[in-house]
């Protein structure tokens, strides 16, 4: 085995909430709190980085259509928590030669006026090296990161590097998460808390799962951070329904499907506009 692999020792203990940056919320939390406190529901669309040759234009179009932050997927070969649509987009991106470094470099060339959050799997982070990739994210204007296969107990070395670089690590709460654990996750989450709407992988659903509103309610009761629900939020009606409880929504597969079908930046913008209008009417 290679001896020079960038493996940091992992503390198996539960990381404590960092008091150091409680007085200095990052760009992501500041932006989302500001919007929420001004009475808006938060809208965070997701696009897989590198999935087609127009994806960067799509990111700009999403901002123009009323997104409050934009989640950009860095594709991984084995996306364990993703359903068929995002698997397909990831595969296309990888076939186009997409790399984490390439996506960050592309993002550094745009200024969309809302925070960018990357979503990826932990192996890409560890392989690049925690400090190096956290620094690269910050330099490229990325405000936050979502790493769904890095739960609280395994968070240590990444969270430290991310905090130091000023990248907010957004943690997830699932419908299966017990109360005490919700509080621990919320205490360590930065930027916002991602409430997983249903037990399952990413993908569109005909109806909103009952668990979406339930989990949102449980998380809202445990934190002052903005709480956004993702996974299984597919259309304006469902977004409105879940925002009866939550502060906002993350919409991924429904948008990516439109892009895979050739909708392009304009089609993506039209869909996000429809979500924006529905949420603004609340």
């Amino acid at each position: 085995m290679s001896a020079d692999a960038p493996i940091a020792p992992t503390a198996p203990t539960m990381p404590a909430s960092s008091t150091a940056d409680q007085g200095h919320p990052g760009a992501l939390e500041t932006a989302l709190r500001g919007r929420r406190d001004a009475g808006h529901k938060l809208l965070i669309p997701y696009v897989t980085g590198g999935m087609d040759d127009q994806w960067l234009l799509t990111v700009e179009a999403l901002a123009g259509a009323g997104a409050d932050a934009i989640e950009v997927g860095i594709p991984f070969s084995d996306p364990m928590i993703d359903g068929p649509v995002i698997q397909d987009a990831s595969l296309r991106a990888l076939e186009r030669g997409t790399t984490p470094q390439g996506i960050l470099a592309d993002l550094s060339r745009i200024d969309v006026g809302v925070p960018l959050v990357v979503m990826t799997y932990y192996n890409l982070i560890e392989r690049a090296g925690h400090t190096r990739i956290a620094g690269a994210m910050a330099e490229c204007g990325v405000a936050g990161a979502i790493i769904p296969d890095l739960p609280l107990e395994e968070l240590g070395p990444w969270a430290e590097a991310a905090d130091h670089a000023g990248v907010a690590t957004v943690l997830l709460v699932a419908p299966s998460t017990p109360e005490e654990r919700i509080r621990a996750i919320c205490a360590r989450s930065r930027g916002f808390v991602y409430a997983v709407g249903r037990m399952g992988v990413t993908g569109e659903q005909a109806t909103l799962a009952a668990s979406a509103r339930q989990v949102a309610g449980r998380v809202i009761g445990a934190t002052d951070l903005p709480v956004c629900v993702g996974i299984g939020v597919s259309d304006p009606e469902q977004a409105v329904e879940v925002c009866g409880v939550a502060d906002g929504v993350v919409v991924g597969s429904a948008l990516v499907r439109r892009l895979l079908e050739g909708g392009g930046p304009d089609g993506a913008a039209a869909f996000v506009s429809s979500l924006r209008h529905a949420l603004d009417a609340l």
Partner: protein
Amino acid sequence: MTDEIMGDPGPSGRFGQYGGRFVPESLVPACMELEEAFRAAWTDKAFRAELDEILQRYGGRPTPVAECVRLSEELGVRVLLKREDLAHTGSHKINNVIGQGLLARRMGKHRLIAETGAGQHGVATATAAALFGMECVVYMGEVDTHRQELNVFRMELLGAEVRPVSSGSRTLKDAVNEALREWVATVDTTHYCLGSVMGPHPYPWMVREFQRVIGDEARPQCREMLDGADPDVVVACAGGGSNAAGIFAGFADSTDSALVAVEAAGGASMTTGMPGVLHGMRSALMQNEEGQILEAESISAGLDYPGIGPEHAYLGELGRARYVSAGDTEVLEAFQRLARTEGIIPALESAHAIAWVIAAAGTGELPVGSTVLVNLSGRGDKDVAQVRDILKGGA
């Protein structure tokens, strides 16, 4: 973590820097619940007694250790086989599924899901589900459903549903992804009966404990045959590494036997891989410089996996076990040679261990007169059609 080699990895599930529990939050409570249930069951005498009873009366344990008379003569090395191929369903996989099936029942889960490569673990899981009256769904890469058609039918006969997986490389790695995805959605009612010493904690530890019966039987069996001595070398094939972990567990801490695990040359995570995180664990993985997982390629569907269990990565790092590989050509030769010299057709997976013994006897790495114990993890009936097609150039 205890100092004992192959002991309890503790609540963090760490074997040195390897192991852990890298799963989505949705699955963390289920993994914790499983760990707690396993800890309680494993120290419960009644659970252990019931498991032993089923493994004896239903599973065919203990399996014998047999002397390979003619092959030993040809090689100049004394070869002993631990005959896991004689266990019910034709491989060591039965040890693990009976354990996990009992545990699932204890946890009130009535549905088992599993991944399978060669189909041996799928068949074993379907068997346990039938025995315990549970539903069963097996995920199998589309490529593997073709090269192991007969095992697909066996699983269906046993009442299981086989779902072909068409994502990624359409082999074992992708079957694991799909089983994990299914588990997230059904965790309330379903136990994921993972087939090897891999995945998130507690699986690598729990599966090794369910498989350690192989080594715990073999050590005294060997001593009886060897006038109280231990074999010089204990060798096993390794994909995820469950049969290797099972036999190593009987020798790692209590003997000076050298331990050798043989991976497929096209899935040699220990010799060509680097540390990384996949399928809930940190271990040695075949990956590119960005961390994208590479596709393994082997004649043997059961070893067609770009990773290995985390405890193996640790044993390799410690130097307690050695990790080598065997190529498809020498494996095919070993497959035929054991059939002709001993009247035993091994699984293609197990033939990797035989291939290494033949090669090592040839180079003198196994000196003349030394004794080697091979874990013959499974029988080769499932591979006969595939081998015929290769040897006869398609049928």
